[in-house]
């Protein structure tokens, strides 16, 4: 019998116990995978966005609109390739469903976000239709919108000139993301700024926030500083940061949830450690006479230590991988759209590290005990 076979045979001896222990590890890693995915979402933000763009907001808060008159000054800063602005529209669909809708200039949007892919005809239609609107694929699919439809979209902020909030837009295009990551983030829509600016009751010349495409991403920090310095001590002080940092800040606003997730992870792991550790310790205790026989037969201390450790590791690895696999499936089922959680490589790396740590933590003590066993004491039951 090979050594590996021996370990497997030992695991198969008390089938109920092995199965139950395995299942507790599977559930624990399922939970670990999902929580870690949420944790990654909060701690790393939207990494795929990269640092090719800057966002300039009012320093006091991004909810305070910057005026349009800053535009020429921002455009004049060396290193700035294209500038667009976007105003949060406060879009509401049907009864009370909030939508992500911005008012933006079509040509500038196209220049600043080459990641959004749409046919040239549809871009042209967006530029040429005053009441035009384009929607991301994810959003359009969610509500079954088709190009050519007139969509009644209310605003919970901006009334029309007649005081009503019943805006309507012509859907002239549906855009896709350039890859899978971007495709997942097409759950938003843009309406034509020129029409918005003219038709709404009170906001005139309010740009909202500016988004800047950089000529050279390496100069992000310098350009950001140049812009902010320009408006220092004016009523419209700005804060410019990379798009990535802006998005990150947005998610972190949800606050202490990240902290709570860490607490839960800690609780789950601590619980798991004790449960699995205890089971393995118990199975070693019950087999002390056998281990003594192994040693009598000439197996070294190290070999016996190895057997026990291998058994613990086999349980942890098997259960851990199954749990992470399950978490990945669940992640695919619930992820995407407004909750872009994904059990991806970052989660798997953390999970694999956790498996190794767990195997060592629960296996090492019983293994050391087994290794140190002296034959005489073991047979005597001391």
């Amino acid at each position: 019998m090979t050594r590996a076979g021996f370990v497997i045979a030992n695991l198969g001896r008390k089938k109920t116990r092995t199965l139950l222990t395995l299942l507790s590890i599977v559930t624990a890693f399922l939970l670990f995978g999902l929580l870690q995915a949420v944790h990654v979402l909060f701690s790393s933000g939207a990494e795929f966005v990269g640092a090719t763009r800057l966002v300039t907001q009012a320093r006091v808060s991004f909810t305070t609109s910057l005026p349009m008159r800053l535009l020429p000054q921002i455009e004049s800063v060396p290193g700035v390739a294209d500038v667009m602005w976007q105003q949060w529209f406060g879009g509401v669909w049907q009864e009370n469903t909030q939508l992500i809708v911005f008012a933006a200039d079509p040509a500038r949007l196209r220049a600043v976000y080459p990641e959004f892919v749409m046919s040239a005809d549809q871009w042209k239609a967006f530029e040429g239709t005053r009441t035009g609107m384009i929607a991301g694929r994810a959003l359009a699919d969610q509500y079954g919108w088709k190009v050519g439809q007139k969509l009644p979209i209310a605003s919970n902020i901006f009334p029309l000139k007649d005081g009503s909030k019943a805006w309507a837009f012509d859907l002239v295009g549906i855009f896709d993301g350039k890859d899978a990551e971007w495709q997942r983030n097409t759950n938003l829509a843009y309406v034509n700024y020129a029409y918005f600016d003219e038709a709404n009751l009170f906001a005139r010349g309010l740009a909202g926030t500016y988004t800047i495409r950089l000529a050279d991403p390496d100069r992000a920090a310098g350009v950001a500083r140049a812009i902010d310095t320009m408006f220092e001590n004016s009523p419209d002080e700005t804060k410019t940061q990379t798009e990535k940092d802006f998005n990150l800040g947005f998610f972190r606003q949800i606050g202490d949830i990240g902290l709570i997730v860490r607490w839960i992870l800690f609780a789950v792991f601590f619980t798991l450690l004790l449960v699995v550790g205890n089971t393995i310790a118990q199975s070693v205790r019950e087999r002390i006479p056998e281990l003594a026989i192994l040693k009598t037969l000439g197996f070294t201390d190290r070999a016996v230590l190895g057997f026990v450790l291998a058994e613990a590791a086999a349980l942890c690895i098997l259960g851990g991988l199954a749990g992470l696999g399950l978490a990945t499936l669940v992640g695919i089922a619930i992820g995407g759209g407004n909750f872009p959680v994904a059990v991806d490589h970052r989660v798997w790396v953390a999970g694999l590290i956790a498996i190794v740590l767990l195997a060592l933590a629960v296996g090492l003590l019983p293994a050391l005990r087994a290794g140190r066993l002296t034959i005489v004491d073991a047979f005597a039951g001391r």
Partner: protein
Amino acid sequence: MLKQTIAMTSLGLRSIPERWGPSLVIVVGLAGVVAVFTALLAMAEGFRSTLESTGRQDVALVLRGGSSAELNSGLSRDQGDIIRQSPGVLAGPDGRPLASAEMIVIAELFRTGEQTGSNITVRGVEPAALALRPQLRIVEGRMFEPGLRELIVGRGVAGQFAGVGIGESLRMRGSDWTVVGVFESGDANESELWTDVEVAQTTFNRRGYSAVRLALDGASGLQVVKDTLAADPRVNVDVETEQEYYSGQTKQFRDTIGMLAGVVTAIMALGATFAALNTMYAAVGARTREIATLRALGFGGGPVVFSVMVESLVLAVAGGLAGAVIAWLLFNNMAVSTLGSNFTQVVFRFSVTPVLVQRGLVIALVIGMIGGLLPALRAARLPVTTALRAA
């Protein structure tokens, strides 16, 4: 039968100390489940009670129609005056309507030691604002002077964010604002900074208001205000009591946290059930010979099942209680903040209530029951002769 049951059960319970290790698995496993469950729901509960205690039944909140949150709303000065003059509004000591037209803007503050900013509500208020919120009082420093760029800061904000101590100044729109006082109210108002509405309007270059709060004249006041304003073509507004407004804001957060708690607890409970089964199988295994001896002496199968179940339940309850105590010690009254519906931070405290503890214990009992049942049945079915020979 009864005597047998009592004897068996007490025998089982008294032998727990000899099997501390395995028994601890149930206790720790369930402590984990109950602690996580209780802590998550205590968060939802704290958020709810903070917001719900903010709103008063006898104060109406008037927003521009269809706005749903103060941040989205906007009313002109004229509209503010029309709303204020509506019948159904209580008169103040000076004979004028008891009302406060308020404007909110958002400032970015930094959590102590963090780089990314958080949105905080800055509320410009009229003098009547304090009369409309009798629960609010200045606990340190003084009230702001109307006409000056001075702020008073809520206790919750002062505790969570940097740069808002008394005497410190905050930079907004190119000017410096001095913090002159700290106020306490025990509700969501504590998550805000307050200043004079006129000064806020000048600085932020806005002429109107976000919302108007009205003291209602008696139980019928609300309806009178609603009817009057609905009939007035110069305004298009939504009128509701403050309490309705704040209660409506808690639903989404409670649903989200409730779902999170449900999923996490269900998965953890599953793991704990496996662990409990493991433990009880081991406990029955260790006592095989003892149980067989008793069976040989004439003890029935019923008492065996009962005694194993009792043991499992006692351990489960111990674990559940430990979990509730841990959740209470670690989290009760812990102040945290999250995004509210104005897109600004709401500071609230975890609240571990007896109801939550009770629900946690029920979960522990159910898991203990499942964990005990299968092993108990196995113990009762053990063929006496083989069991005596085994072990």
